[in-house]
């Protein structure tokens, strides 16, 4: 009995700790976004906007009517979505082959994916900067979509291969016995079964693309393709010690909203996808 109560109290404290850990900094950035710009310039220490220092939604209004930031939202959504869709299509084909077919070079595929997942991204910006300018795709959407695709492929391939291993493949065999080719069996039988896994891979891929910063600042130079993280970091001037904190906080909240929405609706799928690649199931 006594230990039972103790462990319940312990779990309760643990839950509180997790909630504070996860939500306090988020609450802070939201709170900061409601501080007025004058109060921030004059210095307004403390967690909450001090009395009279609140700004209502004016920071949000300023951020959303800012042309550069508005454009960067559009860039981020467009680039991330396109990269996600293309990457998931390629990863689905690859994961199917890895999970299902026998072929020499399977090990090579998995090893390549593993190495690329751990690749130091910054070491590529120099040569890519050079190459993209030669190809004429520097500072364009494709210039970011291509690297986002190749760096999300490993995660997508792992997640999907893990999901594909769970699928009842007898159904595919049955289809093949009934005269379907490998390709037909794949398209008609497996795709519908695999859809939930594919969706999970898509969410994780989208997270990666939305989060990227290195490519975002290195391979763009104007508003034409600059995504949100890069736009935020360039928001005002280069002086990192004197930024319009509350305005940036509002921008940060706007950039976080899509992520929170995805997490709220699909938390179960995201957790399953994240852990699928790391632990043998």
């Amino acid at each position, binding site marked *: 009995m006594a230990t039972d109560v103790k462990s319940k109290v312990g779990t309760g404290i643990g839950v509180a700790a997790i909630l504070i850990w996860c939500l306090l900094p988020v609450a802070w950035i939201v709170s900061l976004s409601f501080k007025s710009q004058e109060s921030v310039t004059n210095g307004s220490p403390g967690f909450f906007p001090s009395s009279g220092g609140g700004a209502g939604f004016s920071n949000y209004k300023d951020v959303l009517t800012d042309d550069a930031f508005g454009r960067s939202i559009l860039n981020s959504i467009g680039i991330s979505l396109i990269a996600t869709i293309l990457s998931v299509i390629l990863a689905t084909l690859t994961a199917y082959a890895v999970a299902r077919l026998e072929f020499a070079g399977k090990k090579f595929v998995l090893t390549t994916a593993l190495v690329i997942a751990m690749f130091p991204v910054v*070491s590529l910006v120099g*040569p890519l900067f050079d190459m993209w300018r030669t190809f004429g795709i520097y500072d364009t959407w494709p210039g970011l979509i291509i690297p986002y695709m190749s760096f999300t492929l490993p995660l997508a391939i792992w997640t999907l291969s893990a999901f594909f291993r769970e699928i009842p493949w007898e159904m595919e065999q049955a289809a093949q016995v009934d005269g379907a080719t490998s390709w037909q069996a794949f398209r008609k039988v497996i795709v519908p079964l695999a859809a939930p896994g594919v969706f999970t891979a898509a969410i994780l891929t989208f997270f990666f693309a939305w989060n990227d910063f290195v490519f975002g600042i290195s391979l763009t130079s104007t508003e034409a393709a600059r995504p949100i993280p890069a736009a935020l970091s360039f928001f005002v001037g280069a002086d990192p010690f004197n930024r319009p904190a509350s305005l940036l906080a509002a921008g940060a909240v706007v950039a976080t909203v899509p992520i929170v929405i995805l997490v709220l609706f699909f938390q179960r799928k995201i957790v399953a996808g994240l852990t699928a690649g790391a632990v043998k199931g």
Partner: protein
Amino acid sequence: MSTTATRKAAKAPASDRSKAESRLAFKLVAPAIALMLLVTAFPMLRALYLSLFSYSLTAPDDRTFVGLDNYWTALSDQLFWRDTGNTVLIMIVTVAFELVIGFAFAMVMHKLIFARGVIRTSILIPYGVITVVSGFAWQFAFSNTNGFVNSWLPFVGDDFNWFAEYPSSMIAIMASEIWKTTPFMALLLLAGLAQVSEDMIEAAKVDGASWWQRLWKVILPNMRSAIMVAVLFRALDAYRIFDNIFVMTAGANGTESISFLTYRQVIEQFQLGIGSALSVLLFLSVLVVAFVIVKVFRVNLADARQEG
């Protein structure tokens, strides 16, 4: 019954079928592999080539072959070693904190019967938040003009400037890094924890093992591979640290990481020659770190690749 029969029947004329299977596999795999190599292997080879030249984009016509001079310049520069030291320090400290806190979180989540959805949702939020946003949130939190950290911490003066000196700047950077990535660690460890057999823990309990003994003798050894894979992934990710430093200090007070140094040479100063040499060195150092972790902790890479 019938399945085995058809399988045997299909095996007999196998060679045609398996050749077709191989061909299909290559077709399915080719686009992804080609794309991954186009964006990594090819530029890396290009960097290897460019690193042998003195080459600046501000004077592209003055490109001259200098052999290994760029590497010599980089390796004999104290800046390179200072930044490598910073990077290794950040990697070790953040992964250690993430491992301990992440494990504690995983234990709590594992025990949890109520509010699982709420906790799972909350823990995914730091994971999903953009690193740049996390950097801003923590920079402003530590700020002595607009932050709350100074007034909440008992031993710190209200006007203490965290970003004025090296140790406190590093603490702020690592706080942001640890905050954002601990949830990922916790989720990986939770999955590992779920694989430890409850019967075994129960048996140890019946045999009189204390909570501490059960943790060290039963739970941890049985989730070893999950821990090692998590450490490997996180360590290599931490070694690439860039976003937080860019946003929070921009490398001021000697807080630069090796990624930041490379970025600065290539993108800000257009020094493609020396920048490429740094790129190659960064790549090699990641390989060394991966090799050391795999060797020291005897990580089974097949677990990470989920073969078997």
